[in-house]
Each structure stands twice: as C-alpha cells, then as structure tokens.
C-alpha cells in the first residue's frame, strides 16, 4: 500500500540521521535505564517493609511492572511526534504543513518521527518481565503467549489513544504538553494493583484514562488471579473504544476546530 511505502521512506531517512547522532541516542537510552532503575528501587524499598501489597507479592508486582513497560515503549517508539503536536506544532504554526499534504495528516505526523530511545524501555520491560516470569514459576501455553501478544498490542493502542487525545487538545488550546505530561505520570503508578486505590481512582485508571488495562488487569490474568472475566477481550475492547473515540471524535473535531480558528 502507498502508506507503507511512505512510511518506509521516512524510516530510511530517520535511520540515516540516527547514525549521525549516535551519542545522543545512547545517552537517551541510558537515561531511560535510569528512569526504570529508580522505579524498580521504589518497588524494592516498599517490599522490603511488607511481604505483600494487598495480596500481591514482590515478584507479581515486578511481573506487572515489566509488562507495563513493553506497550509503553512500543508506543513511544512510533508516536513520539504527538508530544511535539502537544507542545509546539500548533503554537508555532508548523501544523499547517500536515494539512497541506495529500495524505492523512495524522499518519504524516506519526510517520515522520521514530524514537529509538524507546528501545531502552522495551528492553528493560522484557528483562523484568522475563525475570518475574521465571521467579513466579510460570509456564505459558502457546495460546497464552498469543494472548500476551494481543494484550501488549491492545496496550500499545491504549497508550497511543490517550496520547492522541491529550495532544489533540492542543488543537483547541494551542498547547497541551503539561496536561499530557501529567497523564503520563499517572501511568507510572498504574503498575500497582488497582485494588489498593479508592473507587474514584480505580474508576479513573480503568475507564477514563485506562492505564489499568495496559498492565495490571491483563497481568492479573496471566498470573492466575484475573480481576475481570474475559480479561484480554475486555482489554481489546477498551483499546478499540478509546482509539475510535480518540481518532474519530477528538482528533477529527480538533481538526475542524483548528480549521475554523486558524492560529
């Protein structure tokens, strides 16, 4: 398909520039390792005081955490340009460029930028996940591996949808970077068992900003303590609902609003 060819061209270019900025890339990855390390230290310090968190053990929490970083990293890899939409493209007027090209502006926006720093998140996520998997003595069947892949993909879609919604707000307000940043802070904590939170927060993290479905809820199924029946299916449904809402409703009406007010 034509879009695939266009994406390929962007990627080729990006990899070329990457070779030029090797050090920046390595530093970026290192910095993500540091971020991961500090999160892990936090978890370890907590579990040095208590044997379990609302019934969830240390390795179970690590399992959830490792799982949570994988979709986060994958989304970060591909859709990083959305941050720039939230932070500068509308304010500076650069956004017009995407409206003047004969391809879907969202596709153009996303395809234009690839963020290999995110491999740091993915690598750490996979490592921790694998470690916890071993420590918990789990052994997935082929079907479960398949479901895991689906759960991860659904997680990626959730991250992308949330980012899209947050960034699209800039189409109305010119800049929504702070807001998006805060939403992202929330994802830091959604690798904890949702049961510890009040109903209000639980609801927010499950249905309003569904980071819960990225890690905790699917992980609960894989550990063997599913929090909902048909866990993975629900994850997929939530992902699709949020994507549809984010793209068809928020993004498109954001575009309309942008086109009627200009900048």
């Amino acid at each position, binding site marked *: 398909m034509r879009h695939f060819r266009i994406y390929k061209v962007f990627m080729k*270019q990006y990899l070329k*520039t990457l070779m030029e900025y090797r050090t920046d890339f390595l530093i970026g990855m290192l910095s993500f390792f540091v971020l991961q390390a500090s999160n892990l230290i936090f978890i370890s310090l907590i579990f040095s005081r208590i044997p379990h968190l609302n019934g969830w053990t240390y390795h179970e929490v690590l399992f959830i955490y490792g799982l949570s970083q994988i979709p986060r990293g994958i989304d970060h890899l591909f859709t990083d340009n959305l941050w720039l939409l939230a932070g500068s493209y509308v304010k500076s007027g650069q956004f017009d460029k995407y409206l*003047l090209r*004969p391809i879907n502006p969202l596709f*153009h926006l996303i395809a234009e930028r690839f963020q290999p720093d995110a491999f740091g998140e993915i690598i750490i996520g996979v490592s921790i996940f694998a470690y916890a998997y071993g420590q918990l003595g789990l052994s997935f069947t082929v079907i479960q591996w398949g479901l895991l892949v689906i759960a991860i993909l659904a997680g990626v879609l959730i991250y992308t949808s949330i980012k899209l919604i947050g960034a699209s707000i800039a189409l109305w307000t010119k800049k929504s970077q702070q807001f998006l940043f805060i939403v992202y802070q929330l994802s830091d904590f959604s690798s904890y068992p949702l049961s510890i939170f009040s109903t209000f927060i639980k609801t927010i993290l499950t249905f309003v900003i569904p980071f819960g479905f990225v890690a905790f809820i699917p992980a609960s199924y894989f550990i063997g303590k599913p929090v909902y029946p048909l866990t993975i299916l629900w994850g997929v449904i939530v992902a699709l609902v949020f994507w549809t809402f984010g793209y068809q409703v928020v993004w498109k009406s954001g575009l309309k609003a942008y086109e009627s007010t200009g900048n």
Partner: protein
Amino acid sequence: MIKVKNVSKTFKIYKKDSGFKGAVKGLFKREKDYIEAVKDISFEIKKGEIIGYIGANGAGKSTTIKMMTGVLTPSSGLIEVNGLIPHDNRIENAKHIGVVFGQRTQLWWDLPLEETFSILKEIYNVEDQAFKERYDYLIELLEIEPFIKQPVRTLSLGQRMRADLAASMLHSPEILYLDEPTIGLDVMVKERIRKAIKELNEKFQVTVILTTHDMSDIQEMASRIMIIEKGEIIYDGSKEMINQKFGNNRRLDLKIEDLDEEHMKMMQDFLREQDKSAYVCIEDNALSVTFNQDVLSVSVIISFAMANFKVFDFSLKDQNIEDIVKKLYTGGVS
C-alpha cells in the same frame, strides 16, 4: 478555475486587559470580540495567471490564502478550486497545489535536502519518470546542485527559499501559492527567484498566487493585481492600470524647520499645476510628497522646497503599499 464568491471569515478572540491586574481578571471574565478578517470578497482566477495579492499586515492576505488552500474554513461564502471545495476535499485538493511560506519551511530540517525531495516523491506519489524530469529541471533552474547534500538547517535563507520553491513544484501542481516568498532575501536572490517563477509559469502554465509586500515582486512577475485592505478587496485589475496610475510613484520626505500647515498648503498649490495626482501630507514630522516621476522630476520639487523652506534633511523612497492604499481611499480608481 479558482472561484471565490462572497467569502467572509470572522474570528472570535478574547480580549484581556493588560498588566498584572488584567491577567488575574482574565481568569474570571473575558470579553469576546469579533474580528472580520475577510469581508465578502469575490474574484475568479483563470489558469496560467500570475496574481499579485497585496495588502498591509493584518489586511487579510494570509487568511484568504489559507481558505483557498483548505487550511481554514470560511465563515460564509463559496470557494471552488478546479471544481473542488478546498476545506471539504483537502487531501484531493492538496495533490494539485504547491505552497511556499516565506517564513516557514516545508522541508525537513535535519535531513539533507535531496532526501526531502525523495520523501516528497513518495508523499505526492509521483511517477519515477515524471519525477526525474521535473527534478532535473528544477535543480538546474534554481541552481540547487551545490548544496543538495547539505542538511536544510545549514542553508542560508536564499538557498532555503530556492529549495522550498523546487520542493513545491516537484509534483507538477496546477496552482502555486507563494506567501511572501522573497521576504528577507537580498536583491540578487530575489531576482533569481522571480525569474524562476516566471519561467515555471510560462513553461508549465502553473497558476501562481503570490502575496507580497514588495512592489517590485509585483512589477516583475504579476500580470494582475488584487489589493486587500481591512478585509476588503479594493482593487482587482491589471498591472498596467496600476502602473499607469501608481507605478512610477516615489515619495519625497522633507524635514523642514518649524514645519506647519502653511508649508503643506504652499507645496500643494505648487504641485497642483505640475502633477495633479501628487499627494502631500505631514507625517512623522516631515512633509511627505508622493508624486508620479513620469510627470514630475524630483529635482523640480526639491528646488522648490529648498528655495522656499528651510530644508535640513530629505529622503527619497519608492512608493510602498500603504501609499497606494492611501491614495486609493482618497483618490479612488475607476
């Protein structure tokens, strides 16, 4: 092929008082205000025309262009470009237009220039053969070869403008929108760009709509001129007519000791016999004379001034847009 009928665009803005108190007040109550950027404009453009679209800042030029390219929706009225309504069929319309913004580039900042071209080839889905022909032609015309491998961010403004122009033509668009393409460029580069645009228009019959502040851009390239002022089109006609009426106008500013109304009256009386279209006013503490230099030479005016006033400084300028517009409002064009 471009039809604009009774198009208006009104923006809603929120007024805020200035200063610290105003900022706090702005948290609780904001006054709404409406700005009519474009008021009921209509015109038609045929294939192959080069239109010079001029107006002061804030007059409505960019707003009009944005509506024609589909980036902005009109508040009312109809715009049709080759049978399509731009903001309804933005993607389809985009296939046939090229846009160059003088102030912002459409090229990829960090990539070598030639890579931008290969990306655009894919985005506009240009066939290999057609692309190669266009590419070779544009590279030669705009003399891009020397810096084609450099990252765009290292290019000078002149080089970048030529590159933007080439990029906008790669996909053989039928219409080219140029928004202040020569702004900030030095005279030599301006010349090259104007020549290139003219050649592109002749060779490919590309319709060119050019917004500018620079009268010489118009002089060199445009055959038809539209002037917009405060959202309304106050002139739409051939270059010749404007040239006849204003083209050769210059402006002489005289700094006179103890300048007053008397001086202005004396100058007006003197000029009435020499150049009926001459225009005198007092502005910025100077006596300003706008005159047609085909009819009246500057030395005559200066001699008169020096003989009758205590002139301690003067300057001679080419006419600017504001002068034309002022004249249009006071003198009118039939």
